[in-house]
């Protein structure tokens, strides 16, 4: 129902691409288009809505489904805070003052987190304005993979491996900030510009202009924040006593309450309020004072022309396979990325240790079939966050958030640089260690 507008567009696209041989498909597409147009006229909502996070809702339900009212309350609160896909809003932090103990100027800071005009431009249906500027950017470029709610669950998601990023965790892998810190605008911009090699995320470097990219960066942050708050709301709903409802004044109306009601409400937010506050602050910090550490200068032998370069690679090899780094534990003895295949990343964590029946119920409710982790296969020589030395240094030094790659807490700078040199070189390292084929293999096949 909610995606009517868009499925029409898809059918039309498919039609455009069809060749003469596919006349039958065109006919079917025509019928599909006709049917959809018909349903629109017959009253199908033509405005898409945000979808619930099926996984976090079901996890919070823990076997006892929430009532229709309880779910509706979550939807209403989210709409009050973040608007709709056609009419976005950012939470008015002034209405949170009763539990966010923010400092002077916080509201002004928060207003700088995203540019509201950028949100308006990214949201809504695909169109262009009187200046010829494209609008509805997210639906034009992103939603088919990342989904209308940023859940990484758009119509094409199921066919992709890896799945598109689910923004609703606020977790990003390829970034310049330390540890769990959120990505900077530049980090997100880098992904939009360069794409993610080895995945279905393309480069938008020339496809869209800089203002459009900036608008999308802000929209991704908006979807992240919205998704993170939604997850909190489901947890809150799970803690309700029988017959109790979430306080709808979450978004607004606090000042109108009696003192007793205010006290009662504070009780609600003693934990979640602190979490909302830390969410806001984390995103703000990445915008205003990100914790970005520049990698130290690489040793001279990092230069492939340097006579000691092969020694550096050999050092890296020892760390990779030895106890100091133990990279092989996940990336495998040959670097094929097949050392640890039974674990789950942050986005698939809900499936860890669960039975097939349990997982099937989640998938039935809209979750993508879970996948176990795939530690990077170095034999392809493709690095998702980019292969430049500084980027790889950061991946090893800081680990990869969400992906289960730990940070090299005990390695020295030089040891890390040797690992960078080694992992860049694995693709050209013979698996047999330079040994030629064994006599048993000396006959051609056939």
């Amino acid at each position, binding site marked *: 129902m909610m995606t009517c507008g868009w499925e029409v567009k898809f059918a039309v696209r498919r039609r455009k691409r069809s060749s003469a041989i596919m006349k039958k498909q065109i006919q079917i597409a025509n019928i599909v288009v006709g049917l959809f147009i018909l349903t629109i006229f017959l009253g199908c909502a033509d405005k898409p809505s945000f979808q619930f996070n099926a996984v976090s809702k079901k996890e919070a339900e823990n076997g006892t489904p929430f009532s229709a009212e309880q779910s509706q309350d979550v939807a209403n609160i989210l709409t009050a805070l973040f608007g709709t896909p056609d009419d976005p809003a950012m939470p008015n932090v002034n209405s949170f003052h009763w539990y966010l103990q923010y400092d002077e100027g916080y509201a002004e800071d928060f207003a700088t987190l995203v540019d509201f005009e950028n949100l308006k431009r990214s949201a809504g249906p695909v169109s262009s304005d009187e200046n010829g500027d494209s609008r509805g950017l997210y639906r034009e470029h992103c939603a088919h993979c990342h989904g209308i709610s940023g859940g990484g669950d758009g119509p094409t998601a199921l066919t992709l491996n890896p799945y598109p990023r689910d923004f609703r965790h606020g977790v990003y892998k390829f970034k310049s900030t330390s540890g769990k810190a959120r990505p900077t605008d530049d980090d997100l911009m880098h992904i939009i510009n360069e794409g993610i090699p080895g995945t279905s995320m393309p480069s938008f470097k020339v496809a869209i202009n800089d203002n459009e990219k900036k608008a999308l960066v802000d929209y991704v942050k908006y979807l992240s924040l919205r998704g993170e708050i939604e997850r909190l709301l489901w947890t809150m709903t799970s803690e309700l006593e029988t017959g109790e409802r979430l306080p709808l004044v979450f978004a607004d109306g606090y000042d109108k309450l009696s003192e007793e009601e205010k006290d009662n409400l504070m009780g609600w937010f003693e934990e979640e309020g602190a979490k909302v506050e830390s969410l806001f602050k984390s995103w703000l910090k990445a915008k205003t004072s990100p914790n970005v550490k520049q990698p130290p200068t690489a040793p001279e032998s990092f230069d492939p022309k340097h006579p000691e370069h092969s020694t550096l690679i050999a050092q890296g090899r020892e760390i990779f396979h030895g*106890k100091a*780094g133990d990279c092989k534990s996940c990336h495998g003895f040959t670097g094929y990325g097949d050392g640890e295949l039974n*674990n789950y990343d942050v986005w698939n964590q809900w499936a860890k240790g669960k039975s097939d029946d349990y997982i099937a119920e989640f998938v039935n409710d809209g979750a993508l079939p879970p996948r176990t982790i795939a530690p990077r296969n170095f034999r392809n020589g493709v690095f998702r966050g980019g292969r430049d030395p500084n980027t790889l240094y950061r991946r090893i030094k800081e680990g990869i958030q969400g992906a289960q790659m*730990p*940070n090299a807490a005990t390695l020295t700078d030089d040891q890390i640089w040797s690992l960078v040199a080694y992992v860049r070189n694995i693709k050209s390292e013979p698996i047999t260690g330079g040994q030629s084929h064994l006599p048993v293999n000396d006959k051609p096949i056939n």
Partner: protein
Amino acid sequence: MRTLLRNLVCFSLLIFISSSSGLAQEWGNLKGKFIATGDAPKAVELVPDKDKAACELPMYSRQLLIDKDGGLANVVVFLKKPSKAVPVHPSYKEAMSKPVQLDNLKCRFEPHILIMTTSQKLRVKNSDAVGHNANITSFNDDNSHNPNIPAGKFVDLEMPEVETRPINAACNSHAWMKSYILVRDEPYMAVSAKNGEFEIMNLPAGEHTFQFWQENVGYVKKASAGGKTLPKGRRAEIKLTIKAGETLDLGKIEIPVESIVPKD
């Protein structure tokens, strides 16, 4: 003269107040024993998919440990996160300045549940011959770490933020390895032992709000002592009065097994 008198009165009052507040801080203890009621389910065996030589086999899940008398281990008892600082008894001072250790031993985290204060460093050690890591996930960015710890090495981590409830630590290369960490400003917390017993020493006398936490359910809502349900409300709060110089013994605290069985 009048001013002098007033000053004198003020001065003596001040002395009285300061000395009385100095003396006023008195302490008491809290103890109890968790008993799981009902039939204990069979322990779940954990089958490692690698590094078997480093593990002590067979290995069983610790998410529900009940001894033969029903004693329930690994229930965390703590003061509900206080809104202002709670006085700390001097006997805690020394321990609170030393690192607290989370070991990787025989492919398990030791201890399974660790309690620590923000003043302590978290020493993540690896006593095994294989590599481990400790992926600590918190809402607080500053408490989230995922250090790789090579065999025989250790890493000291800062845990500067207070957590409302225990947070998770997992090893990513050994999927069965899991533990929990509770970080607080004050040291008033305990983890029930194998026989279900716990004790918190030297709490400031007065009324406090406590919470019980168990990894399969979070806040324990179904817990009763002497036929009376202890936790109240959404956050399962337990109001208790600690009397100076006395130990408040909650006796047997019964938790129905079915309320804490993990869902799978």
